[in-house]
């Protein structure tokens, strides 16, 4: 019997459809059906100026907007050969780590709901709001920040920000203990999640899976360590690894990443306290650095030439490795923007880790994959 889990289904946490073939409670086959949220972001980007694409990037992955901003801006800077001042790099690092914390808290809230835990959902959302408050205090947005610009960031941090950020870090590190008690402390959690959705390391690599799913299989692979970008080369942290390759392992990896993120955050906050400097590059063309320049549209007379080139960037997004590939053919809009979402790959391999389990196991497994449909469909 085929059943449709989606597009409107509490399991999906977004807008997609998982067609499941079941025999009683057993899952025989699955077929993910995507595209319900395909907004043509890559196409719209071709008609937009580089800084204007940032507004799209925020909405590409709505739980990790800052990370996607960072991804695209890095690719654009790579294509246009622009150097970013150091303070801006550190602010970007801090922003991405805060985004990771927010995203993982959102994941926690959604995941515990999938296994039927009711109150931790509220705890996760409550604590995530604190991080969003921090974002709001220096970018002005809760989910859609529009903060990064080609060549730097829009503005410096407001006064007193670092102190408050540290307070939030302290509060969160206390809460993580509580989270672990609620999940790992419970026998039922282990009965539900151990040895569930197993995808071994070799399979992960065969199917191109990255992020916490790969690290839960014991592969210590993290672009922040392996291919340091922004200020990640200068901060001290460890890559979270678990060896279960199952749902519990992914839980452990993400919780450990939360702790490591706080560790990175404390270091970046210290650095930002000690060092001042510009947050925008000097050599940026004026309509790039200054967000207010009139941008050329068709029919309008401001046509400018950019250097031809190809930009590429890869960052460790909260969900995994995200790649951006920007082709610039001299116009003021990118010729082609190709974004690769880690979740896109992770869902594509759904058959590998869902078949053979039960219907009741689908929500925890898909919850542990951490689906964000916005970046899958783009």
């Amino acid at each position, binding site marked *: 019997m085929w059943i449709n889990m989606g597009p409107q289904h509490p399991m999906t946490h977004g807008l997609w459809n998982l067609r499941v073939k079941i025999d009683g*409670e057993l899952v025989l086959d699955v077929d993910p059906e995507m595209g319900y949220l395909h907004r043509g972001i890559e196409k719209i980007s071709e008609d937009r100026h580089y800084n204007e694409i940032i507004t799209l990037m925020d909405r590409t992955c709505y739980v990790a907007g800052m990370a996607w901003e960072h991804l695209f801006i890095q690719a654009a800077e790579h294509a246009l050969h622009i150097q970013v001042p150091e303070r801006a790099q550190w602010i970007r690092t801090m922003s991405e780590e805060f985004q990771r914390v927010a995203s993982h808290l959102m994941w926690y809230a959604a995941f515990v709901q999938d*296994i039927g*835990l009711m109150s931790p959902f*509220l*705890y996760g959302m409550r604590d995530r709001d604190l991080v969003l408050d921090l974002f709001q205090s220096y970018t002005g947005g809760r989910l859609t920040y529009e903060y990064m610009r080609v060549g730097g960031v829009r503005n410096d941090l407001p006064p007193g920000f670092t102190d408050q950020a540290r307070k939030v870090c302290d509060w969160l590190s206390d809460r993580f203990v509580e989270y672990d008690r609620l999940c790992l402390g419970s026998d039922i959690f282990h009965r539900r999640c151990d040895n569930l959705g197993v995808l071994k390391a070799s399979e992960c690599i065969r199917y191109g899976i990255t992020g916490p799913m790969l690290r839960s299989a014991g592969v210590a692979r993290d672009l922040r360590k392996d291919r340091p970008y922004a200020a990640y080369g200068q901060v001290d942290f460890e890559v979270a690894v678990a060896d279960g390759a199952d749902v519990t392992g992914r839980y452990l990896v993400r919780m450990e990443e939360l702790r490591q993120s706080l560790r990175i955050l404390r270091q970046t906050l210290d650095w930002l306290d000690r060092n001042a400097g510009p947050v925008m590059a000097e050599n940026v063309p004026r309509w790039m650095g200054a967000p207010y320049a009139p941008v050329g549209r068709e029919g309008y007379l401001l046509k400018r030439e950019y250097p031809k080139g190809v930009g590429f960037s890869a960052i460790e997004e909260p969900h995994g490795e995200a790649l951006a590939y920007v082709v610039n053919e001299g116009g003021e809009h990118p010729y082609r923007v190709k974004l690769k979402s880690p979740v896109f790959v992770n869902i594509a391999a759904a058959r590998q880790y869902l078949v053979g389990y039960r219907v009741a196991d689908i*929500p925890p497994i898909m919850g542990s994959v951490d689906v964000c449909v916005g970046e899958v469909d783009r």
Partner: protein
Amino acid sequence: MAPLSLYGVSNSLVSTLLLHLAAVLPAPLSTLLSNGDLILLLSVLVFCGTLLGASLLNTILLIWFERKMLGRFMDRRGAMHVGYAGLLQNFADGLKLFRKHTFRPQDADPLGFFSAPTAYMVASIVMFGILPVSTGWSAGTLPLSLLLALVVFSFAPLFIFLGAWSSANKYSLIGGMRSAAQMIAYEVPILLAVVAVVLLSGSFDLTTIVNEQRNYWFWGPLFLALIVFVAGMLAEMERIPFDLPEAEAELVEGWNTEFGGMLFAFFMLADYARALVGSYLIVLLFLGGWTLPSWVPAPLTNFPLAGIFWFQVKTYLVFGVFIWIRASLPRVRTDQLLRVGWMRMIPLSLLSIVLAALVVLAKCLPVFGCLPSMGS
């Protein structure tokens, strides 16, 4: 003073009213009104109406209690803007659902689709007539009221499955099958746990069972049976961690996916009525019903309706524990649930029967003669 009895009150009310009316009215009417059968009929009707109304009010209050309690567990407030502290929220919900358009999906079987919620509702509400809330507040002294209660209580899976099957929805069907499987699996340990209570009290009558507990409550000697019974009740009420039939994460709304409007309200109300009944049963069987320990000072037990008051307090405490469990535990899986039911709960309940027998035996031994005697 003689304990108030609901039937007594309604009987005297009706008879006084009718006799006064008869005294005023002319001859043929007055003889008709002072007829004993009419008085009996009317007083039974008043009794039933009062009992039903009070029970349903209590159920709605229970829903409010759960929403507020869950809110506090989740660090939020719960319903608070409709009426004082949200007390009227559930009335608004009920009225709204009453007004909603009731419809039937095209493929649904009309007979099952409409009769299942009604039957489920009736089967749940009948329980309030069977369970004694305090002395004199039951429909009557039934010698086998415990058995009757359990029989009526275990009717529900039938209606759930009927509703699930007739709504022609795959999720409903899976939910209904899970529901049937889990309720049947947990009927057995519940019955076995009840056997222990019966063994200790020597009666199937709930009033007698409560009276047996006036010296000591049964949860002490029958702790094992209590655990089995609570777990079974959690499964029967379909609450987290055993709420698989309605498991929101995988089955959209479980077996009531296709029900809307008043039919959904019936299911919802009946669910909570069953939760209330379950808590009633636990209080009746293990927590001494409306009795209080003898060391409690007299003013606390002597006021009118004290029995009902303490009974409700205990019920809400028991239900509070259920809410606590719901707020902090994840859901188990079907096979795990069934395995626990068949492999753990049944041996445990058998063990508790043995324990109960030992307790009964111990009382017969002269060494323990100092213990309070049972019953007589």
